[in-house]
């Protein structure tokens, strides 16, 4: 009897100790990799850790150009040093195909609850869900009011029904340039990048550049593409946009007051607002007369590594910053990028509108409309990266004056052989 009592007591003690032990277990660390500054996520992480004392989030950042190589090296090397990371949504098919993203089909319903259809599309591949919706993007056309005043030209309208065509925009730009002495008339921000130029090349009905059942057949030499290419070339040949300035330095043409129109993202608001004497307005981006208005969209999504050491906790963090408006709030404050989550969107857009009471309401109107009605994602294909790399080089050559048809033909050839290698 005595022995059994002692035994039971011992067992009970052991059980209690184990239970106590697990309550005081070491917190699980979730490694989170992005290309953003630490400040962007610091508050969200603090908030999350407070609500989940048994999880710590370890934030790592690498430069933007190194995100993909880093993920390939580390996740591709099957090591568990990354649990959660931001994924550039056009790359989801290729990365899913290479086994770099964990399948998260159970989250599908939650995703449908917060994201619109266009945004859902970029998170899946062959019917499976691989990423959670995080950020999106859109474009506006900023214009320099000082230059318009000097030239005596009326401001363009912020109403989408008065959206100008490319022809009208360039004519207006030329007029303002002549009247104000501005150096540049129409400057796209991410110059020579497919993301920025997609509306110019696809918007007149030329197709995205990739066709076929898996979007693995290049189609960049049709008439519409050549016409778009000639338009793009003319911007530089006629000195309306500069050659030789890299895309990260493009905004300096606008902030230095030398450019009439600037097509860029809403992330420029804080930048432009900080420049003294820069009075600017916003209008919707132009469109092709015979085409439909189209805007670039999408940005980063959140994915989980298939080799994550702690997949459950990793998912918790990923959900927190995507499906949970509360988790998104501190991030939005730090980095004004559009959240896909429609519950978090109102707080975001109102904050944008409040930045500058003069143009805020216009910006809100334009952005909300574009995201809902004119956003077109980049083509979904496992060959997207090769496509984008080759096309960006082709755009750069066209910008620098090479023959449009010859350049596009060469790109077509190169793409055909490269995409064949991927299949």
């Amino acid at each position, binding site marked *: 009897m005595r022995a059994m009592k002692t035994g039971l007591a011992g067992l009970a003690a052991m059980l209690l100790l184990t239970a106590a032990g697990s309550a005081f277990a070491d917190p699980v660390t979730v490694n989170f990799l992005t290309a953003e500054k630490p400040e962007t996520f610091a508050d969200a992480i603090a908030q999350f850790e407070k609500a989940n004392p048994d999880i710590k989030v370890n934030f790592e950042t690498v430069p933007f150009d190194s995100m993909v190589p880093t993920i390939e090296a580390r996740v591709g090397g099957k090591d568990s040093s990354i649990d959660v990371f931001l994924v550039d949504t056009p790359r989801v098919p290729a990365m899913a195909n290479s086994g770099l993203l964990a399948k998260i089909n159970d989250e599908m319903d939650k995703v449908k609850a917060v994201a619109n259809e266009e945004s859902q599309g970029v998170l899946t591949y062959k019917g499976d869900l691989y990423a959670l919706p995080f950020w999106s993007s859109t474009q506006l056309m900023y214009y320099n009011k000082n230059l318009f005043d000097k030239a005596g030209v009326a401001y363009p309208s912020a109403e989408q029904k008065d959206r100008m065509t490319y022809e009208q925009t360039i004519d207006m730009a030329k007029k303002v340039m002549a009247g104000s002495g501005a150096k540049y008339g129409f400057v796209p921000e991410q110059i020579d990048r497919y993301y920025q130029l997609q509306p110019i090349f696809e918007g007149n009905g030329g197709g995205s550049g990739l066709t076929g059942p898996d979007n693995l057949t290049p189609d960049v030499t049709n008439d519409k593409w050549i016409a778009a290419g000639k338009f793009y070339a003319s911007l530089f040949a006629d000195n309306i946009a*500069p*050659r030789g300035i890299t895309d990260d*330095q493009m905004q300096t043409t606008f902030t230095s007051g030398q450019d009439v129109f600037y097509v860029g993202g809403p992330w420029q608001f804080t930048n432009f607002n900080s420049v003294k004497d820069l009075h600017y307005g916003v209008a919707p981006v132009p469109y092709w007369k015979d085409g439909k208005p189209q805007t670039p969209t999408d940005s980063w999504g959140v994915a989980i590594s298939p080799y994550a050491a702690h997949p459950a906790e990793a998912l918790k963090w990923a959900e927190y910053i995507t499906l949970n408006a509360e988790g998104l709030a501190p991030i939005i404050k730090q980095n004004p990028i559009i959240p896909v989550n429609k519950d978090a969107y109102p707080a975001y857009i109102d904050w944008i509108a409040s930045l500058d009471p003069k143009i805020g309401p216009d910006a809100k109107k334009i952005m909300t409309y574009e995201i809902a009605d004119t956003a077109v994602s980049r083509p979904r294909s496992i060959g997207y990266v090769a496509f984008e790399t080759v096309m960006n080089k082709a755009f750069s050559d066209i910008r620098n*004056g090479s023959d449009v048809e010859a350049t596009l033909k060469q790109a077509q050839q190169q793409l055909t052989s490269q995409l064949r290698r991927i299949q």
Partner: protein
Amino acid sequence: MRKWRNFWVAMIFLLPAILSVVVLRLWPAILALHQSLLAPRATTYSFDNYIYIFTDPVFLNSVWITLFFSIIVNPLQIAVSLGLAVVMNNKLPGTGFWRSLILLPVAIPQSVSAVVWAVAFRPDGLLNSLLAVFGIGPQRYITSPDQSLASIILVVSWIGVGYWMTMLIAGLQDIPKVLYEAATIDGATAWQKFQHVTVPQLRRPLTFVLVADTVANFLVFAPVSILTNGGPQGSTDLIMNEIYTSAFINSDPGSASAATMVLIALVLVIVLIQFRLMSDRGEK
């Protein structure tokens, strides 16, 4: 048996270096070779990757551009470094400071130098505004297929000549003064002294500088990647840029490794040729 005892002692001295050569160079190189023989999604060896790159006009262009670049940049940099060495080889006050300044670009990360030069090359940048002062119209530099390679040569030379200049100054300081005094007695001019005393005496350091510079120029990458990305129209697409693009952007380790093997082979062949040509006196 002294020699064999010496052998083992020497091996102890050499051990750390041999280890680092094997682990940090040979082993990864073998891995790269292995990678180059595996076509995408293949599990057996084949030459597919090599066939792919040798039928790829882009890769072939990069080999051609690299060779063309090499033929121009190497003699140019040697000549400039030698000239600089001659000018900077003296004990005038402040020379040490200026020499350090010329050497400094070597120590600055190339990504930084490239950003500064990007600003200089802008159509509204410093170079054009300087030219405007002299009444010369704006140049296109890295956006013109005709000027871009020359621009890269300029950047790479600004970064590198200090290094070679320093080595050549050392070589100059080694030349026995008696030789110059003898030449002066014979009535030689400065140019003749240069031709008949300086250059022959500099043979060893010049060989070394030529070989090292050639190798370095085969590996040029950062300025191309940041300033031109190989363009316009592939006119600056040096081979390291293609390797990087294949490996890190196209995620095609097979063709990247194959191209790396080709690069290594090219470097070795050219270095061997240079050694043969310049050291008939017998390199030690």
